[in-house]
């Protein structure tokens, strides 16, 4: 198994005379499909909220969705289920997916009552998951329908980050309308996973299946992008690195000597992870040393990853070098695909800025930012997001507040490209 790595600059041409030019670099990474078509076995843990608010239809549909999920797993996969209200308990111990009936019975035995302590649920989930993690792709789905009343959100983020250090990925699923989208987004971002929104019980089954398909396509884990920048290239000051596909996630980075390291997490075989880097290139010093050169090297990129099927860790891919063309009479040579990624990131950032303004009380500013975001979405062809964002902007301008459901829809719309038009 190996890595597919491609890089594209936003504009390949660089003005010789300009002292400081900003460019964006889009790096696409995916796992190449394995020869026999099988990925490493899955080690899945479901952390399910069964607080009182989940009573009745919500918990029933979640239990059914969980049982259907187990049906779609393979014999060599492992499953564990943790239930939590204000305390967490193990429902299904980490085991192979062979005694289907007994697993499903235990899931069915969940009853709704109690408060909500998400961090205890995550902690127990981590413990159960780690029992089966060797040689497998460990994934945790955390589902909740409410605020973390009996818990501590910071602990959630800490556990999420801890999970990634043990090469386990956390995904968050928000059920209904009463959960906190900021908290769940942070849990997913910190855990290297994705955030899903289940607006009503009927959608639970399909969201579970969608996530399962996604994690079943994981070929390589614990991937890190390692960049070596040339001395005349630097990263932008503000949030220079972000993933733009399949979801938009702001990525923190570390510097080790000259190298910049970004954690990507799991690499799928069917979907690329695309990371956007915002850089500034100052060709003056390079030109002094090489006055006749028509090309200028920018950086070299490679990926460090683990191969779960072979229980191999820290494999390095072949480094790829990227360069730009130095031109005298500068004419932009825009790469349209990179422009689309820029728009995707712009849509997310603008929506986040709108949220910030809303929280500060600046409704007019928030509405304006949402309209910018709507327009950005339109430019990139994401009509569903544009509709959602524009509706929100209009509502804000007419003075009404946004409902909880709308705010969640907005968050999802900004973070991903909506697959299905929002339900009326």
């Amino acid at each position, binding site marked *: 198994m190996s890595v597919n790595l491609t890089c594209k600059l936003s504009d390949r041409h660089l003005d010789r005379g300009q002292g400081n030019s900003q460019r964006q670099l889009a790096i696409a990474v995916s796992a190449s499909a394995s020869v026999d078509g099988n990925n490493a076995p899955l080690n899945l843990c479901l952390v399910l909220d069964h607080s009182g608010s989940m009573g009745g239809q919500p918990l029933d549909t979640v239990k059914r969705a969980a049982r259907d999920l187990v049906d779609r797993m393979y014999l060599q996969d492992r499953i564990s289920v943790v239930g939590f209200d204000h305390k967490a308990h193990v429902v299904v111990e980490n085991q192979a997916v062979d005694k289907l009936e007994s697993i499903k019975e235990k899931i069915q035995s969940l009853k709704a009552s109690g408060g909500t302590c998400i961090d205890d649920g995550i902690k127990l989930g981590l413990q159960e998951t780690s029992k089966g993690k060797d040689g497998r792709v460990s994934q945790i789905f955390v589902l909740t329908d409410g605020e973390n009343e009996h818990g501590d959100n910071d602990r959630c983020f800490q556990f999420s980050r801890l999970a990634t250090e043990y090469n386990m990925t956390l995904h968050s699923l928000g059920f209904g309308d009463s959960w906190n989208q900021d908290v769940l987004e942070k849990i997913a971002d910190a855990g290297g996973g994705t955030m899903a929104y289940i607006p009503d019980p009927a959608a639970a089954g399909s969201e579970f299946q969608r996530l399962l398909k996604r994690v079943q396509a994981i070929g390589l884990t614990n991937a890190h992008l390692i960049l070596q920048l040339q001395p005349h290239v630097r990263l932008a000051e503000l949030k220079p690195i972000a993933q733009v596909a399949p979801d938009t996630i702001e990525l923190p980075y570390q510097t080790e000597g000259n190298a910049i390291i970004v954690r990507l997490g799991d690499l799928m075989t069917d979907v690329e992870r695309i990371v956007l880097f*915002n850089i500034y290139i100052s060709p003056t010093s390079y030109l002094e040393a090489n006055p006749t050169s028509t090309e200028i090297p920018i950086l070299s990129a490679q990926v460090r990853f683990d191969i779960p099927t072979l229980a191999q860790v820290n494999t390095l891919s072949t480094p790829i070098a990227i360069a730009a063309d130095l031109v005298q009479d500068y004419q932009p040579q825009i790469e349209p695909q990179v422009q689309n990624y820029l728009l995707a990131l712009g849509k997310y950032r603008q929506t986040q800025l709108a949220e910030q303004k809303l929280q500060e009380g600046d409704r007019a500013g928030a509405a304006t930012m949402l309209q910018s975001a709507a327009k950005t979405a339109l430019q990139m062809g994401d009509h569903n997001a544009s509709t959602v964002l524009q509706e929100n*902007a209009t509502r804000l301008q007419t003075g009404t507040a946004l409902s909880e459901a709308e705010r969640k829809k907005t968050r999802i719309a900004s973070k991903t490209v909506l697959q299905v038009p929002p339900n009326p």
Partner: protein
Amino acid sequence: MITCPSCAHPNPDGAVNCEACFTLLPIVKNIHCPNCHSTMLSEAKFCGHCGFKLGEPMSIPTVLPIANSMSNSLPNETTEDNTMGTGSLENLSSEVANVHNVPENYLAENNSPQIQELEEVAAYLEPIPHPTPQSEPDVSANKPANASTQLQQFAASLLHVQTNLNIEIPAHLPVVHIGKPNMVIPPDIDVSGFPDSDIVSRIHADIRAEGGSFYFEDTGSSNGTYINNLPLPAGNRHKLRAGDRISLGKGDKVSFVFQVIE
């Protein structure tokens, strides 16, 4: 230091996209007014200090394409958005004949706030050509075939209905005063030359630009101000939308139509 027009984040020179919100940054340079040598933006039409008119008169706005595609359903936004995006600046001469029809069209379609706001903000956010026209053709559904890429600038103007004269709203001024010559607050837009201007006060109204929108306020006129034939009480700021009819004084004798130029 380039300030982002969308989120006000200060970006280093050489930036093409804002670091914070990734909006395209306008390439504005500071130049000196040929008349009084004070600094002004290269895209400005009038010098803020001496009022010297700079550059080609960009008088007739292309309003028709937007008016035609305006309707209340969102799918049309694509058309309208792309119309503006790909540069709806057509030949000036061809539009002169059509300008008369514009105010009526706008008045009729004046009830789609979200589209007009979107269009205003869109016009504000699309100052500079080169990257934008490339990406939008890939995206558009009903894109009109516009061969050349045109410079797009954010500006607004008041079309004086009775004389059909277009008055640019000086873009760089935070507040634009409307009235007739006086010693207290000299007007930036002087209407004393227009017929029936005796109905207009010396300090009649002002327009201010904030966050990409224009707000109209009556600053204590004797005969009042009417927006779309509804009285605007003094001190109330009305957010101007493209096509708004502003009448100074009663009886629609001195009227303007607010237009956004692209």
